[in-house]
């Protein structure tokens, strides 16, 4: 597949390399705390990432990363949705302390040559980790820039020899009410399930994520293994995956089951198709601190700015009906 750089990134997101490097040296020499967020390979200042998170090694940068400055480690790990730990956006960080992401096993089944239960290392270790700095757009109209660390999902899936009958890939989140207090209430039907078409799953932008900011994935962000599909609303990017199934039929997906009029199977970021209860035309880039109080919303881009790479996947599909 032809990989092209996206063309619809706002000019303001792009910093000329000379300015970029100057700013790095300047900020570094000034000992500025935020300087690290400008490094091409995003590493937060060491004192910002708690020491309990193991640093990942051998991570290589990717040309598919955006050049926009990432959100802080605090923002990424302190403000997100993970209903398994509670429905407030502070709940995942506050309630995920008891969760044990290791040892971890994933069941791989369905229309594939190689099926069975595999441990984390056998899934991840054969691959080189990449840092992918992606735009992340939540269906609730907020967004972040996040330096994920992961593996192209397609590279992993190929090793299990999907058959010609495999048209979709289904994913399932772990169920552990004792460690995930949000699962004690039937807010959603547990386990959380998601799915992609085979073409979406094999697309080079689709990532099986194991870390963020150069360290292993914190519990609240979907440890130890999660999906990231950057051109779709965040809820498609299922967390803490314990099962991957190759299927012939379109698999059920949790938010679609919960509110079919509000959340579709595709869930591609689309400013032209509003959520029935709020507009998707603009988004608020998450930014903590009083200084950002008067920052305005920004326009949402089709496919979250990844049109050039992914729009062809949906040729002939009515996106206002297949939302």
């Amino acid at each position, binding site marked *: 597949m032809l990989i092209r750089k996206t063309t619809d990134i706002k000019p303001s997101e792009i910093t000329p390399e000379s300015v970029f490097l100057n700013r790095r040296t300047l900020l570094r020499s000034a000992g500025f705390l935020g300087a690290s967020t400008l490094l091409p390979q995003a590493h937060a200042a060491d004192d910002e990432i708690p020491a309990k998170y193991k640093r990942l090694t051998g991570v290589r940068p990717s040309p598919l990363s955006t050049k926009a400055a990432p959100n802080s480690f605090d923002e990424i790990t302190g*403000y997100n949705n993970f209903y398994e730990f509670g429905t407030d956006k502070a709940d995942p960080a506050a309630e995920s302390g008891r969760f044990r992401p290791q040892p971890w096993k994933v069941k791989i089944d369905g229309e594939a040559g190689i099926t069975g239960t595999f441990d984390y290392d056998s899934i991840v270790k054969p691959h080189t980790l990449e840092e992918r700095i992606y735009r992340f757009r939540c269906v609730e109209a907020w967004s972040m820039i996040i330096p994920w660390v992961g593996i192209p999902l397609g590279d992993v899936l190929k090793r299990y020899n999907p058959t010609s009958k495999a048209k979709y890939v289904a994913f399932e989140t772990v169920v552990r009410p004792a460690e995930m207090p949000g699962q004690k209430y039937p807010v*959603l039907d547990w386990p959380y399930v998601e799915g992609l078409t085979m073409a979406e799953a094999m697309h080079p932008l689709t990532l099986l994520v194991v870390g963020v900011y150069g360290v292993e994935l914190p519990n609240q962000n979907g440890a130890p293994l999660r999906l990231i599909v950057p051109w779709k609303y965040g809820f498609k990017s299922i967390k803490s995956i314990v099962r991957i199934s190759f299927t012939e039929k379109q698999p059920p997906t949790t938010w679609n089951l919960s509110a079919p009029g509000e959340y579709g199977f595709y869930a591609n970021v689309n400013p032209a198709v509003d959520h029935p209860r709020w*507009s998707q035309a*603009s988004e608020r880039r998450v930014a*903590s601190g009083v200084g950002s109080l008067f920052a*305005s*919303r920004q326009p949402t881009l089709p496919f979250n700015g990844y049109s050039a790479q992914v729009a062809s996947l949906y040729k002939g599909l009515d996106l206002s009906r297949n939302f």
Partner: protein
Amino acid sequence: MVTQRQIRLFWRPLAHLACALPLVYLMLELAEVGGLRLGANPQLAIRDFLGEWGLRLLLVTLAMTPLRWVTGKPWPLQYRRLLGLWSFAYLALHFVTYFVLDRALDLSGIIEDIVKRPFITIGFLAIVLMIPLAVTSTAGWRRQLGGRWLTLHKLVYPIAILGCWHFYWLVKKDVREPLIYCGILAVLLGFRVWKARQRAPAG
């Protein structure tokens, strides 16, 4: 026995202080005092905080009349106006936060929201309906309107229903918290219906 003087000099200022506490807390969060922080999405944190406290104070306001019945004492009625005005202050600030911070004064966007999004329509309607109540809350207006004042101020019931409904409609999925508000409102309004039936001659 609490005297009017004690109410005026002690209890009422204390009630004002209590009503202002959430606002003080918000200021401390804004100033990041003592580890308090607004978090990653400050605009929405302020907006939601103000909305929740406005709705809470509205329910407390509506609890004063039943409280009088339960205690048999008249003092709860002396706090109704104070509580109602504080509720209005929070809800007006809630709207201003949405208008100024969240939508950055984008008038066409706001009009679109009010027209197209039912939960915003009813929330906006509730705040608009509160304006005449706040304006006519003074003793002067009360005298001037006479019997019509009481009729006008019955608007507080639809306002509270719209407010709770607004909360229920806006949450993505977890309706447990708005349902608590709706439940409290149902009890408070149910109390009034029950009382009215008691008063009515047995038929």
